[in-house]
């Protein structure tokens, strides 16, 4: 398979463990990684980047174990870290000089063009940038060398809607080339609904849902009712409930919802809420 494959990834820390995480990021797709804080999203991303060594499992880039990749092959995975990781005292001109010596396919012209496009000053130190400017600089860096996979760890969190939209646009443009793929983790699920083809939902170190986003959002719905009604409810699939003051909210397969109940379209936020706080029915 072209793209990135994560197979049975396991990493144990005191008090937290990532258990058998598996999912694919096929070429030509955008995969959204969602989950609560501490669900293991960053550990997965750090494992892909080589910043964390998994206890077991494999990560394959175009069928090849990433542990065996050369530096040039490894740089086919571009990345944007949540804290950018850029040296704070350097301006973008100096940063270009440094990164052109680190990334084998660095394109200085592209880097300068992206700076202009994103209205980033070339002579101002990164430490003096706003949070949005720092993130835009990190994205400009990640798009200035040839890559097949782009990994972004919470790139839009804490940013205003205008900057977020600009960043989402750039990620969208990146995927216009068919052999490229994106993995993006974010707490802003509305951004992912706009951008992603697939969703991977992680909870307490495990993958709970791995599904095409359209299927996921079409398959489920939410309705509300009195709790007493549930004992008489016949359904084919499992459902989840959250007890409220006014009754219960139910996340269920649309086909299971009785015609008498009106339901609403779900969002990714509903999925997270029902799987983290809800009980299985």
């Amino acid at each position, binding site marked *: 398979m072209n793209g990135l494959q994560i197979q049975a990834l396991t990493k144990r820390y005191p008090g937290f463990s990532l258990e058998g995480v598996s999912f694919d990021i096929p070429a030509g797709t955008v995969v959204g990684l969602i989950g609560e804080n501490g669900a293991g999203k960053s550990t997965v991303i750090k494992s892909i980047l080589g910043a964390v060594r998994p206890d077991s499992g494999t990560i394959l880039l175009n069928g090849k174990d990433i542990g065996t990749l050369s530096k040039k092959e490894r740089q086919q995975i571009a990345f944007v870290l949540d804290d950018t990781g850029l040296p704070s*005292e350097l301006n973008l001109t100096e940063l270009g000089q440094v990164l052109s010596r680190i990334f084998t396919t660095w394109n200085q012209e592209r880097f300068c063009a992206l700076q202009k496009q994103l209205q980033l000053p070339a002579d101002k130190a990164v430490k003096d940038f706003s949070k949005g400017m720092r993130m835009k600089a990190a994205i400009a860096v990640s798009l200035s060398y040839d890559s097949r996979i782009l990994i972004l760890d919470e790139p839009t969190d804490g940013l205003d809607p205008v900057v977020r939209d600009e960043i989402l646009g750039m990620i969208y443009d990146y995927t216009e080339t068919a052999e490229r793929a994106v993995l993006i983790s974010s707490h802003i699920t509305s951004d992912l609904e706009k951008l992603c083809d697939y969703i991977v939902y992680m909870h307490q170190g495990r993958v709970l849902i791995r599904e095409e986003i359209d299927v996921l959002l079409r398959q489920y719905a939410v309705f509300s009712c009195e709790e007493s009604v549930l004992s008489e409810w016949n359904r084919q699939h499992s459902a989840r409930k959250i007890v409220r003051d006014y009754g219960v909210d139910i996340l269920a397969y649309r086909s299971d919802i009785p015609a008498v109940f009106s339901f609403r379209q779900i969002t990714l936020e509903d999925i997270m809420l029902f799987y983290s706080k809800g009980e299985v029915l």
Partner: protein
Amino acid sequence: MSGLLIKDFYNIRKQIVWYLAMIVLFAVFAVSFRNISFASSAGLLVTISIPLTAIAYEERENWRKFLAGSGMSCTVVVLEKYLLGILFSAVNFCAFLVVFLVGNDPADSVSTFVVPVCMQFILLAVLLPLVFRFGVEKARTVMIVVVVAAVMLFIGALNLLGDLSAVSSLALSAAMIALTLLTLGLSMYISVRIYRKKEF
């Protein structure tokens, strides 16, 4: 490696100016007071402070996570910090050479020059594995102990030199250089092994 070196020069350029000024200041003191230990003290300070400052910035900025993602080899990342320390001790070496030639007592032996220079590198060799293992903050405590021990060793070595003849001074210098090379090589090997096990 050149990219990493350039990054460090840019990132800690303000501190570099201060350290260079310190080398000059200590050299002037050493010549003025006809006491070369002033200049050698600056060498010890600068050689360890420059890489430590650079590493402190990297820890704060999460630069190492960035480097891991870029596929940069652990060996290159580690050796660059040694090279950074060695480059600045080379600057101090030049200043110390001038001080030695201008301000030394004719009775001073070659080892009076060689021993302090070697001590800079030995100190660097001892400290860098600690910093890679524990990080700059935790390593500071260990560093204070090491610096005090190194200074005592250095003073003891200087006293010892006074009792040695010119021939044994040359032998001592050769032994010091051999010890320095051995310590540096061993230190680099240990640091690379430590760094390979690090997670960011």
